[in-house]
């Protein structure tokens, strides 16, 4: 250990920064949406990146093995089924394995964001109990962490397209838009899950079961085109339906997604965020009380 009297070394640039960024903070006067507005203005970008980076390392470790895990994660959900319908059973319908992958992979992002969100406040408890920071960013950082993992699992779609000899078309240009909607849905779910995990810590398993049920209440295992009757009309009400069908449009059918496939999930996510963000901004003031 060094001699205790030796002062801490400090960079001159840090000293200048410290002097420049001190703020007056009348705590009772901070409006609930101050953190949200600060993020929109880009003030919290460094905090968001730091939280995401640390979350990534804490949840997925370090090194190349992470990529292998991310590739295998989608298989953990319906992997055996996917392999069976692709290479063994030869289920009727257009490229059943690819169709299933178009649902499983976007759902994986939603599911992981919910799982991350449910424990996001508790997993940050040591920091939350020690210092004040932009706690409103915690679920967003969790969703971004899972988005990076999700990016790797997109390789599974490429694998399925190769297995069914389906060539990509110009419709893949829609992929960034579809991905953006997918991430938006994941972020909205992360905020909801974070609040649920905070309010009902005993019911986290129930929340995960609910999200799984939403997968089966959407055209996940079977494409919407293969579903007949009243279910065909009702399933699009589930925001996940549009998401799954948008991926199928881009990768399976090789055509542009229909408007509802993007608008329904995006509108649902924005509605959830509009309702939950102010609630979250208010609740984050009391995280330390319930941890």
């Amino acid at each position: 250990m060094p001699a205790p009297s030796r002062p801490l070394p400090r960079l001159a640039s840090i000293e200048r920064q410290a002097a420049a960024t001190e703020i007056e903070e009348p705590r009772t006067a901070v409006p609930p949406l101050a953190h949200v507005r600060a993020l929109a203005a880009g003030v919290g970008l460094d905090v968001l990146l730091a939280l995401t980076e640390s979350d990534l390392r804490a949840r997925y470790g370090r090194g190349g093995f992470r990529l292998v895990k991310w590739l295998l994660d989608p298989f953990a959900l319906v992997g055996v089924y996917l392999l069976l319908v692709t290479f063994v059973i030869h289920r009727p319908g257009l490229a059943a394995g690819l169709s299933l992958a178009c649902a499983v992979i976007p759902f994986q992002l939603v599911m992981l964001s919910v799982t991350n969100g449910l424990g996001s406040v508790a997993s940050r408890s040591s920091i939350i109990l020690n210092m004040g920071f932009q706690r409103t960013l915690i679920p967003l950082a969790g969703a971004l962490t899972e988005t990076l993992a999700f990016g790797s699992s997109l390789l599974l779609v490429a694998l399925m397209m190769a297995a069914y000899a389906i060539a990509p078309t110009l419709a893949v240009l829609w992929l960034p838009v579809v991905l953006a909607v997918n991430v938006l849905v994941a972020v909205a779910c992360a905020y909801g899950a974070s609040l649920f995990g905070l309010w009902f810590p005993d019911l986290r398993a129930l929340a995960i079961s609910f999200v799984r049920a939403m997968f089966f209440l959407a055209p996940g295992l079977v494409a919407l085109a293969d579903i007949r009757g009243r279910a065909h009309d009702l399933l699009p009400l589930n925001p996940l339906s549009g998401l799954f069908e948008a991926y199928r449009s881009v990768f399976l059918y090789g055509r542009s997604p229909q408007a509802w496939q993007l608008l329904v999930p995006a509108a649902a996510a924005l509605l959830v965020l509009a309702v939950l963000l102010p609630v979250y901004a208010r609740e984050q003031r009391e995280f330390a009380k319930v941890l």
Partner: protein
Amino acid sequence: MTTATIAAQGVGVRFRFDRQRRVVTSTLARLRRRGTETWGIRDVTFALAPGDAVALVGASGSGKTTLLRTLAGVLCPDAGRLLVRGRVASLLSVDAGLTPALTGRENALLLGVLAGMPRSHIRRALDELRDWTALGDAFDRPISSYSQGMRARLSFAIAMQAMPSILLLDEVHEALDHDFRELVEAEAHRLLRRGGMLVAAGHDHPLLERLCNRGLWLHEGSVAADGTFDDVRRAYVP
């Protein structure tokens, strides 16, 4: 460093419980209706001037940690008004925000950014921080492999690296070895000479006397005495 200020006027922090006696947030308490509540601190009024070092004394459960958490921005007041001006460094536990799964370097980066330092600046300071903490290769190993002393030294170094003008200590300095106490004392005195502030809670009165010129006795969440450290200590322990 701009002038540090702490001014509390009638500050209160309330804890609500549901019927199962779990602590719940205000939103959930309103939804569940039936429940009880207690105040961690209530009607706390005091003001600190630059260079002030205040010792919080009082029995366990008297509100010292709640007050420190409120000053740190960890808790928000449910009543009254609190003004905190200046960058705050808080060590409210030995771990002080460290994440066990992350290495010392990763923790330093994360906590430095959360404390208000830009990522690029804290990245440049990481090697100096490793040298100063004398952690050597352990700096790149997970915190879970650290001893309590190593954790305390790292968390204190990270906190002080952010150039705080207000330092909050919650019994951390009491739990550790002689070297670490001397380190904390030396840094605290440097901070005070620069016009900063120190608020320290604990039960080791000789140590608090060396650190602090003022005292605040908390009793059942309220201020029972406010004055010089000697006067407050005599009032608390006759």
